[in-house]
């Protein structure tokens, strides 16, 4: 099975993606990750204003069959969360790179983003 892996963003080994736009990094999980999880039924996210550190847990995602921690791809302050996921967690399955985004971080260290995997490198990991 092949999975979407858009090359406009960076990836973390724990399957989160990070997309920087105008100095803000939007975060979600990959197509591969949502497929592995199956039907997503619950997402727990931090509050706006919380600080997160790179590779630190920022939340939890639950499918019918599994519970997984979510890890921040970059350090910084949470400036937005996708509250739609509280009522419609299935957006993560339907559109993991779009409407299923989870949070936005104002990064405290731009170099962290560069150190993440490229789309090609991530594809090699999940192959």
């Amino acid at each position, binding site marked *: *099975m092949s999975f979407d892996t858009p090359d406009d963003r960076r990836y973390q080994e724990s399957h989160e993606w990070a997309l920087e736009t105008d100095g803000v990094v939007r975060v979600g999980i990959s197509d591969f990750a949502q497929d592995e999880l*199956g*039907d997503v*039924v*619950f997402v727990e996210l931090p509050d706006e204003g919380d600080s997160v550190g790179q590779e630190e847990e920022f939340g*939890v995602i*639950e499918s*019918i*069959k599994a519970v997984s921690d979510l890890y921040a791809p970059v350090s910084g302050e949470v400036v937005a969360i996708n509250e739609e996921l509280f009522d419609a967690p299935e957006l993560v*399955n339907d559109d993991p790179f779009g409407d299923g985004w989870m949070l936005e971080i104002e990064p405290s260290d731009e170099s962290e983003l560069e150190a993440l995997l490229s789309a090609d490198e991530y594809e090699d990991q999940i192959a």
Partner: protein
Amino acid sequence: MPLQTPPLRGIHDERGAKFTEFGGWDMPVEFDSIQAEHRAVREDVGIFDVSHMGQIHVTGPDAATLMQRLTSNDVSRLGVGDSQYATITDEEGIIIDDTVIYRLPDEGGHPTYLFVPNAGTDEATHQRWISYRNEWDLEATVDNQTDEYAMFAVQGPNASDLVERVADGSPADLSRFEATYATVDGIECWTARTGYTGEDGFELVVPWSEAETVWSRFDCQPCGLGARDTLRIEAGLLLAGQDFDVESNPRTPYEAGIGFTVDLETDFVGRDALATAEEAGVEEQLVGFQLIDRGVPRHGYDITNTEGRVIGTVTSGTMSPTLEKPIGLGYVPVEYADPGTTLQVVVRGQSKKARVETTPFIETE
């Protein structure tokens, strides 16, 4: 130990199924999506490969006696083509397993039974039957046929229409808990109107070598163990090894809410202990609950009272695809067991409000 594989392992793999280890078997957990499969069974019809379930065949002059003494219900009530839910208990009245017993047509003039222990317990159950048969000096043949027969469950409100189209032998005329031989493409299958989803449906015991032919005739949603679990929790049905376990969670049928499987007028292993337990009443019992706060209850989470004192454990839990609410099962002291009682479930360190509900959680057929 290598995993046992169902006869259709390759077919499921080609179909894109994901697999999981269950009871020592490598079984499909999901074909398309647990929710899609779940919905198919609630609204239409789906088919499950449940070949991991055991099949033990018992016949001979003392077959009825052997079955009566090793299971909790009254086997003598079964006419040919009847089936019965029962428990297998130890001397202390603790559930070792739950099972469905079918009475097959007589063989050699003797009552003949097929019963279905849970995945991975078939050999231990077979040995238990042999051991007691020898100890009691009974004349009965006990065969473990788990590797000779596949088993499929066709479940859902439209299961009857589908079975009628596919099978000859009028299985659609069966009443609930009745069974008969029906043929699919000329292949004889023991077909029972039983199931584990809360819906109308049929279970077919199919010769292993003919499994693919029979499976392929049922043109409907294939379903995995994931949907089987969400469906059975909504229906308030127990999972062996999780909602009861002779080692890790020893329970009597009364505690587990299946006291209806116990007939104290019959003589069986565990009968005296259960008579005493029935007289004394239970201290704890299995309840259904709904989580009011956001979260998903999972097996092993603590249940507390509203003061935060741990009073029990979640044995099964899920986000109900039908109700779109988090639901679960767990044992609590009887004073907390009335529907409407407020409890808490500790979800990853956080107390979440829950409410005891009557089961089944959904309206079933």
